[in-house]
């Protein structure tokens, strides 16, 4: 389940935020601090997660740190899915 979730997020990030031919990324690649997803684009990533998993992530929890890797994003989604 956890890996399925991570794969969905990873595939979305690759499809939406990476240019064709970009270096591959993994579950622990820094997305925000690595400059792959900027803080403005984070809003669209948050929206995707909310749509996909029918959750609501409060702005205070949607920090650059919480969105920095696929791993961390999956943790965040799981936290709000359970809530």
């Amino acid at each position, binding site marked *: 389940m956890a890996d399925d979730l991570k794969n969905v997020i990873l595939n979305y990030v690759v499809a*939406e935020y990476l240019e064709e031919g*970009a*270096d591959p990324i993994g579950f622990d690649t820094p997305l925000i601090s690595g400059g792959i997803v*900027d803080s403005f684009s984070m809003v669209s990533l948050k929206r995707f997660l909310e749509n996909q998993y029918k959750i609501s992530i409060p702005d205070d929890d949607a920090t*650059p*740190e919480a969105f920095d890797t696929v791993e961390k994003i999956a943790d965040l989604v799981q936290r709000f899915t359970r809530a």
Partner: protein
Amino acid sequence: MPNIGSYEERLKDFQWSAAERELGIEPGRPLNIGWHCSDRICEMGKGDNTALIWEGLGGVQKQFTFDGVRLASNTIGRFLLDLGLGPEDRVCLFMDKVPELYLGVLGILKIGAIGQPLFSAFGDESLYIRLENAGTKAIITQRKHAPKVRKILDKLPRLEHIIVVDYDGKAPLQRKEIAFSLEKSAPVEDLEIHPTEAESPSLLHYTSGTTGLPKGVKHVHYSIVSQYLTAKWVHDLRDEDIYWCTADPGWVTGTSYGIIGPWSLGVTQTVLDGGFSAEAWYKFIEKHKITVWYSAPTAIRSLMKAGENLVKKHDLSSLRLLTSVGEPLNAEAVIWSEKVFGKAFLDTYFQTETGSIMITNFPGMKIKPGSMGKPFPGITAAILDPKTYEPYPETGRIGLIGIKPGWPAMMRTYWNNEETYQKKFRNGWYMTGDRASLDKEGYYWFVGRDDDIINTGGHLVSPFEVESVLLEHPAIAESAVVSKPDPINMEVVKAFVSLKAGFKPSPELDLEIMNFIRKKLSPLAMPQEIAFVDSLPKTRSGKIMRRILKAKEWGEEIGDTSTLEDD
């Protein structure tokens, strides 16, 4: 004692010519920013001093001395000359904050070409508009950004070369592409510097307008005089400083104060090539013992959100001066920085068009949190009556910020758009388009824009540009774009759209539209909120009334609606 000494004393006998003398600029002699920021510093005996400390993903670090900067910019200049590029050719830099961006600016200037730095997060539509308008002949980019250039290449017949600085040989180069590796190129010791003059064009920075397409702001080599002196007196830069300007050179701050200001003074500067993270930023300051830090209100508010405890985990005692730019710095952020860093961020104010700081808080000056500060010596500013364009005789009134033209870094025109340039002047004043008031002690207080331009995170976004691209989406019939308040970015983009028959609002469509704008224009321009409406408020002549939508977002009076179309 700060470099500026006494602000009041400086006002008494101020002459830009004093800065010219310090820079060794003589009337009628060549003046080249590329040479001044590298060769000249070496001639002053500082060639072995560190010019650039660069850190990329995973902590990878590169360093250049001023002699290294001289050689690297020579090498890039030679490569461009060998491609047949020369004086006044527009050469775009479309890269992340990699060393080649900083060194490339100097290399381009050394051969007399015009540098056109563009934010690497721009989508293909934003890129196309700017390259087409400038008639750009070459673009220097990275592998990861080359696909955006390929998408628009057929529409850009004047674009002759796509220079890829990190080609790894894995996939073949495509049409017009050529690889350049700074590391693998033999350093060029001697490059004949093109004898540019004070008024020769140097950089072309694009900025958004309320209506129409983005405008290319043309700067000249003489701008270095303003940039040198403001870096010296406002950022208080000294030989021993380690300076960090967090701005991207795709924006004017990143060239004026991320390249020209510090390097014309021979000061070490640092670059962190990565996205924002409070933890990473504090680590960077601690690691490199940064002394002067020039950042932006959006970043400062994000640091506030990350909390004080994070600050305490790091030794930030090297910091001696904090400055801020991009949008007004709110009083809370000033007070917070004083509490947690022991120093207040000094707010500075300027624009792409002004090229250098116009109104600012100075080291050593009494800070009024939330104020813009006072005009830089040599700058005559005023609050103008919007009807007469005359300065208000009394203080405390809100009006338009006007500046008397004539400082060295002022733009010389908008590229291929002299008509719009001329409209920026009224009654002998350069009109900034910003509103403010002046208090009895001569401090300026920012109020807001005088037009519909959206200032999000310190970057200007044109509602017109976003609306136009929204209409390219197959589901959208009509669109209107306004700013809405945001606690971190001051303002963000909000779009109102009505849909064509057969389309219905849905969370999926909402996200699709957001991503459509992000990819076509840029993440900054992406609406952070989309409202699906049946129709938009219009005048009887059919013009969409943005101001009504904006007033609602900001909780302001809607004002006169007598010309509103009947329901």
